[in-house]
């Protein structure tokens, strides 16, 4: 079986990055990164293009050498090991299948280096192909497979080696939406099955949230925030995270009490006291669009007029102009015909104080 050897105790740290830094002629692609990845985790590296995700991955894989910092795999410092001596495998965004080799030989490539031959080799390869649901294509050439299939082969080619850690650099980037959704589930299934640690690079936030059990959000080579999907979504610590992970309404305000905030137009709203703990000076409060209701069912209220509506099936999105600023909200179309609201109608918005998060204004560069 491809699954990890049992003795690996859960909770052991498979990958540890210490002050990891990479400069390309004085551009810091990765900047003093500290990160622990525990065994069996499905970790997502999420961030805008150019933030250093690939570089980080390439350093773990051994394709770039760090300018500074250390990399530990299963406790051993591997900075000086070439890729072919590291017990990690990478699934490249471009798949990088060997065009001149058959699918079988592609998948067998790593095993042959490990001196596997004959039946055992064949068995392992077939098993890997079955795992990705592509048994029977052994003799084709990569270019004879569709994008999605090539993707699975790349996966099989890495998994078959039973690495300690699997690195995936936007493995689904090249696939179209439908196929992408399928592969997301597929990947998650496989990871469950083999229990190998996955580090998955993506810049699609939904992908990260559906797949990973832990997300690291990078920006400009640094870690902005790390945590479980809902931690990051419900309690973003910076405007960047709030804006990058889904849409959020940020309203500027000032402290008006232990759990009160006065917004630009003077309206006072209440927020969880915890979020204000030892804060001073200017802040912004944030509310997710789906947390806002039409009507006054909740304690925090704002009045305004609808400036835009967009029907997207599942829900209808409204943009409402309020004295405190313009606010987006999603209303799920859970009854036929939708809400029947149109541009120009004036509405009252309300939301549960508990749903509010707070960030320092200085960062309101969103």
């Amino acid at each position: 079986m491809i699954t990890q050897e049992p003795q690996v105790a859960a909770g052991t740290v498979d990958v540890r990055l210490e002050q990891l830094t990479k400069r390309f002629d004085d551009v810091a692609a990765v900047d003093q990164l500290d990160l622990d990845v525990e065994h069996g985790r499905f970790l997502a590296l999420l961030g805008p293009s150019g933030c250093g995700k690939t570089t980080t991955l390439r350093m773990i894989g051994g394709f770039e050498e760090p300018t500074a910092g250390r990399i530990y795999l299963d406790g051993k410092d591997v900075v000086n090991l070439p890729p072919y001596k590291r017990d990690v495998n990478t699934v490249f965004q471009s798949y990088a299948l060997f065009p001149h080799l058959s699918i079988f030989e592609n998948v067998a490539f790593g095993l042959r280096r490990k001196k596997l031959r004959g039946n055992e080799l064949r068995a392992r390869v077939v098993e890997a192909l079955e795992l990705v649901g592509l048994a029977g294509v052994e003799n084709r050439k990569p270019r004879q497979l569709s994008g999605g299939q090539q993707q699975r082969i790349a996966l099989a080619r890495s998994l078959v080696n039973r690495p300690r850690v699997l690195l995936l650099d936007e493995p689904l980037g090249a696939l179209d939406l439908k196929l992408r959704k399928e592969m997301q589930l597929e990947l998650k299934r496989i990871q469950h099955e083999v229990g190998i640690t996955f580090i998955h690079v993506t810049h699609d936030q939904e992908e990260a949230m559906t797949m990973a059990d832990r997300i690291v959000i990078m920006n400009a080579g640094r870690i902005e925030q790390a945590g479980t999907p809902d931690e990051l979504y419900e309690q973003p610590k910076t405007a960047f995270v709030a804006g990058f992970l889904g849409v959020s309404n940020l309203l500027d305000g000032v402290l008006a009490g232990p759990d009160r905030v006065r917004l630009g137009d003077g309206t006072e709203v209440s927020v969880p006291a915890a979020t204000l703990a030892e804060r001073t000076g200017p802040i912004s409060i944030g509310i997710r669009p789906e947390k806002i209701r039409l009507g006054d069912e909740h304690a925090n209220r704002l009045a305004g007029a609808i400036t835009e509506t967009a029907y997207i099936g599942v829900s209808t999105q409204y943009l409402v102009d309020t004295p405190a600023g313009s606010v987006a909200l999603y209303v799920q179309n859970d009854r036929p015909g939708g809400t029947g609201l149109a541009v120009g109608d004036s509405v009252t918005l309300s939301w549960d104080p508990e749903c509010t998060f707070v960030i320092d204004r200085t960062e309101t560069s969103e």
Partner: protein
Amino acid sequence: MTAAAEAAAPIAVPRRRFGAFARRHVLTVFASLSLIYLFVPVAVVIVFGFNNPAGRFNYTWNSFTFQNWLHPFAVPGIQSALEVSIEIALLSSLFATALGTLIALALARYRFAVRGAVNTLIFIPMTTPEIVMGSSLLTLFLNRNVATGFTTILIAHIMFNISYVVVTVKARLAGFDRHLEEAAMDLGATPLVTFRRVTLPLIAPGVVAAGLLAFALSIDDFVITYFNAGATTTFPLFVWGAARVATPPQINVIGTMIFVVAVGGMILNLVWQQARARRGA
């Protein structure tokens, strides 16, 4: 793949490790040696252009002089030979480039019945020994009672140049977004206008390169010319003849000139292309 990416990929890891370090430099040294090997004869040719040979033969170094450069045409016959060569090179590269570009366009732009046959017909001349081409052409002229001379040389040169032009231009057309032409027509440009305003400007570097190549091949050609020159003498033929009785250093001088001009042309084209790239074209 960007230079950067490629510089990073295979090198990054083992930079620190001696084996690979050595290996890299062994390769570099080897490459440098090869380049030197390629250039020793060139150097000899250039240097001996400044030789003041003892006697008629310019094989051994005697003493340095500028005379040869001051009077490159002092040797009777050399000037007319060079003129003929240049004339033919210009004409043949002009015609060949025109004809070849058209073929390249047809091949890159259309799907038609005889495509395979055409490709083969383009390919074969490049894989036919010059001597066979030269001799077969000669038999044609002999059989059709055509006196060999300037015209027959021109014909031959155009013939063997076409293939090279086609290949060069086709390469350029390969990286050419078909939608550009469609866009032009979409914006009301007739096929002709489209060609003039969009296609041609974009493949220009390829066409120029092809032209230069053709020129170089033509001015350098000996074998095919030798067979079909009749009483006409091109520069290579002159050298051939001269080599038997005397090798005046002027030969090296002219050779060097041609070399400089050709390489210069190539470099200019290169620079021009990179400038275009920077300008975004």
